[in-house]
């Protein structure tokens, strides 16, 4: 439990730091809903996966394509558990695959919470994937 709180604190600090430099996206609005916080490095991988791999069907800015729009505004009204289940198990009969071979259920929960964070200004979305 302590470990989780430390991780959460670290995450918040990390977001705070990066925010002061490049105005990176804010932390998930409700990170405590996810049971286990992925490590900061893994969180970065998951955000990257969201932009690029989910983005290959939903658009780099998640504004939709073959798949529907899944930016924060679009998924705001959806139950977080439903988003997580869709990521983890896919949607049979549609092109949405199950991602469970690449992420854990806890990571799907975290990603669902992250997807529902308050929308960031557009310019950030365009530059959020720049690496050091």
């Amino acid at each position, binding site marked *: 439990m302590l470990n989780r709180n430390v991780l959460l604190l670290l995450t918040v600090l990390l977001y705070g730091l990066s925010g002061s430099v490049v105005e990176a996206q804010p932390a998930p609005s409700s990170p405590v809903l996810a049971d286990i916080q992925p490590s900061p490095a893994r969180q970065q991988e998951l955000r990257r996966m969201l932009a690029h791999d989910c983005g290959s069907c939903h658009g*780099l800015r998640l*504004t939709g394509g*073959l798949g529907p729009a899944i930016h924060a505004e679009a998924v705001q009204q959806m139950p977080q558990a439903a988003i997580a289940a869709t990521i983890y198990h*896919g949607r049979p009969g549609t092109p949405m695959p199950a*991602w469970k071979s690449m992420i854990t259920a806890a990571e799907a929960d975290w990603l669902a919470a992250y997807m529902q964070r308050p929308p960031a200004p557009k310019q950030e979305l365009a*530059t959020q994937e720049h690496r050091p």
Partner: protein
Amino acid sequence: MLALLSLCVPLVACVATPPASPLPPLSVGTGDLGLVVERASGSLQVVNTSRREVLGAIKGLGDLSHASLVYSRDGAYAFVFGRDGALSKVHLPSRSLVDRIQQSGNSIGGAISQDGSLVAAQNYQPGGIRVFDSQTLRLVADIPAEYEPGKLSRVVGLVELPGQRFMYALFDANEIWIADLSGVAAGQAPQLQKFKNVGRQPYDALITPDGRYYIAGLFGEDGLVKIDLWAAQPKAERILAGYGRGQEPLPVFKMPHLRGWAIAGRQAYLPAIGRHEVLVVDIDSWQELGRIPVAGQPVFVMARPDGRQVWVNFAVPDYNQVQVIDTQSRQVIQTLSPGKAVLHMEFTPRGESVWISTRDDNAVNVLDTRSFARQATLKADAPSGIFFTSRAQRSGF
């Protein structure tokens, strides 16, 4: 006398500023130019394929995830279809954005007519195609993919057909349409021909280089559909039906792209959806010749221009590899690891080199297609599609 004097002055001025070269200046050729899409930063890098150099960027093109482009016949201009529904016209020699319109909400690609006068964009939102004058980007025709009253389908697999026509598939409607725009210059409306019940969820398509066969991949079932456009009565016919033979399909983390160079000689090399296989089909008999096990879900299956080799890249998580198939033995002869997150490949016009974008390495790698040796590594910001001007001379794009 005055006239003579005034003539002399410019002449003297000319002599006084000697040209750098004794030859008159030549305009720049475009045959060895190309564009690399930088998907995250909304820019294009202009490249030279002879010198294997990046010449410079064209910026301000918006959301370029899944962006594709087509060339004007002279190879000097490209029409770029952005995910955000923008259609941009860029000029390669001056590396400038010359025009840009917001043509839809969400676009996925396009094609240019046989004579180069019309540019068609295929749209997801609103579903349909829109056709523009390639000179002015003025809207010439708006053709919604309305398959039931008020219902528009997402459009995929748009190709150019001879005779100012475009052919495309309706993902949501299980239909394939041909729009004939040969009369629009004379003020006539586009003519539509529709093929219905072609198969479930066509996701992309290709046209053979001779413009004869249109082949669409089906996401919703095992198999593909082909239409012979040279037949007296073209009709949709299933090919390779049931290639999965009841096996549980593997998850498809990225849709395969059929458009490209999948035809090698008399054989078509096609990605099997939900399988780690490339399907080989004879395009005379349309019988399956075999299937080649590969390293992951194939995304692009592209024949070298001579058809001797077929290069394959893969969806996540196998996208750090590229495999090369020898079309004579139909075996994988080489497995390469060119870098992280291979998104696209493009052959030089005669195929001595292949350019491979590796998104997570922020690089484009140039490989020798005979020795597989690396010839150059160029920097690009999260590169995806690579498009050389030699596409301007190919039918279908």
